[in-house]
């Protein structure tokens, strides 16, 4: 502990020396983004309009947070931060404040009627050639059953099959299903698998939230049964994957709970994430 304090003391001394050239700026926005390749990021930049000639043009000084959980923690710790994350995760996490966009809050209703603009499908996909194993097929059937979609609705996501989904009955199967992909879909998949395993205690479901691209590669290489994606699949991916939409999810724009801002326009969100507005005063 003494050494840690010494290190910190050294940092303070160094920091004081640097204060002149560094800059302790009061209201400068800290922009947090997800990494290149993240499904949430590519959906976000496309919908908000941060794409120029098909190229992702997000603010270069934006802090890159690998994974949804790192994003949440960073925004929760930074009073001047702004970031974005799956609404299912963001609304369930009391550490951050979800902002209405153009006055519209990302509720299930607003996403279904389309007034909340920043939304994308949650997709699961399997290898078109290999198909699904009997066990994986059973799990997918559960996801699209009344019970499965009830789990989706109960967790701040919008079910894709709102009514009329068939009842699921357990077949007493056993074995392991490997699921990999989007860290945004990860949470929902966890809830689904927990509900599924209550009915099928002998089935193990291994879920990895390594990112959309990672999951797609894993299915391609035969390392996973099911890929999770938080964006529409690309044409090159559709050549070997069969996708299914399991839910609609919004992307919430999130800030620290102490941040005074009460809402943003979609244009303001774009300006912030393009780096054209750098101060909170510029959007308030």
């Amino acid at each position, binding site marked *: 502990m003494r050494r840690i304090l010494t290190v*910190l003391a050294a*940092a303070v001394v160094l*920091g004081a020396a*640097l204060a002149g050239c560094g800059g302790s700026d009061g209201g400068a926005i800290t922009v947090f983004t997800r*990494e290149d390749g993240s499904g949430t990021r590519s959906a976000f930049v496309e919908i908000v309009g941060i794409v120029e000639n098909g190229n992702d043009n997000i603010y270069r000084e934006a802090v890159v947070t690998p994974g949804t959980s790192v994003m949440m923690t*960073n925004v929760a710790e930074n009073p001047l*931060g702004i970031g974005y994350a799956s609404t299912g995760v963001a609304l369930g996490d009391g550490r951050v404040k979800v902002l209405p966009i153009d006055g519209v809050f990302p509720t299930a209703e607003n996403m279904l009627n389309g007034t909340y603009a920043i939304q994308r499908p949650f997709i699961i996909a399997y290898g078109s050639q290999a198909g699904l194993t009997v066990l994986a097929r059973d799990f997918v059937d559960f996801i699209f059953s009344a019970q499965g979609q009830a789990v989706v609705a109960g967790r701040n996501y919008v079910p894709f099959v709102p009514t009329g989904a068939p009842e699921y009955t357990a077949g007493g199967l056993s074995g392991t299903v490997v699921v990999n992909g989007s860290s945004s879909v990860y949470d929902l998949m966890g809830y689904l698998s927990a509900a599924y395993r209550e009915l099928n205690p002998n089935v193990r479901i291994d879920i990895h939230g390594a990112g959309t691209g990672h999951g797609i590669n894993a299915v391609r290489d035969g390392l996973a049964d099911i890929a999770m994606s938080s964006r529409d699949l690309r044409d090159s991916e559709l050549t070997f994957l069969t996708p299914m939409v399991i839910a609609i999810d919004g992307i919430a724009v999130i800030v620290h709970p102490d941040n005074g801002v009460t809402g943003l326009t979609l244009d303001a969100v774009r300006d912030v994430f393009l780096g054209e507005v750098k101060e909170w005063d510029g959007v308030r």
Partner: protein
Amino acid sequence: MGRRTLVAWKKVCNREFVAKVIFIVSASAAVLAVGLICVFLLVQGLPAMWDIGIVSFLTGTDWRPTWTPPLFGILPMILGSLYVTVGAVFFGVPVGIFAAVFMARFCPPYLYKVLKPAVNLLAGIPSVVYGYFGMVVLVPFVRGHIGGNGNSILTASILLGMMILPTIITISESAIRAVPEEIYEGAVALGASHERAVFFTVLPAAKSGVFAAVILGIGRAVGETMAVRMVAGNQAVLRMPHEILSGTRTLTANVVIELGYAADEHRQALIATGVVLFVFIMGINIAFSMLKKKDGL
């Protein structure tokens, strides 16, 4: 020689032979592993470097892997790794060496009983825990008391400085303890105080071990990934040395953040990043052995 003795003799021979093979295989496992990694990196990474152009790969300042056409310039990451490593040395080495001197020569036994396990524990903490600590303690601290948004070169340097402490302390301490007692006693006999004897005779006598500790610490700092990517900001933007309150991306972070998503050329470019990292580490090791030779240590 009777038949029975002959059979017994053959058995021994066989056993010896088998044992020999086992030992040779064990001994070459490490060499083989290095060789395989070398081959893998070069086969996968060099063609990519060639396609991108070695010069534009190494000196390019733009990293835009998802653009069409993509840009693969890793100079920001090379400098990023350099900055956080130098920073880690700045914070970690003085503290580590002084701590080692204290533990070897000044520490009362009751305190040593606490310090030693504490240092060992520090070494055993997984780097992701360091990363989380950095994210919720160091980042807000730097943002609040020093400046910038907290996700910066400085924060990563402080965190890495902490992470290399156990390596530096442990190896320096054993190096200091390995110095013959006569050297210390001789100095004291000549009238040096305890402090003077330790700092001007014992510590210089242990310098090869201390250097080894620093080099290993640097190796750990260059290679550290999980913790750094959680606090460093990860912007692939070229930084100048005075911009230590801005974020940076290290070579390791670049690989680990994007490898899961990468395909084709992007993936190869990341493996080529690994080649550069490998050359870095080799350079450190070569510098170390040259230093050793020159000093006759």
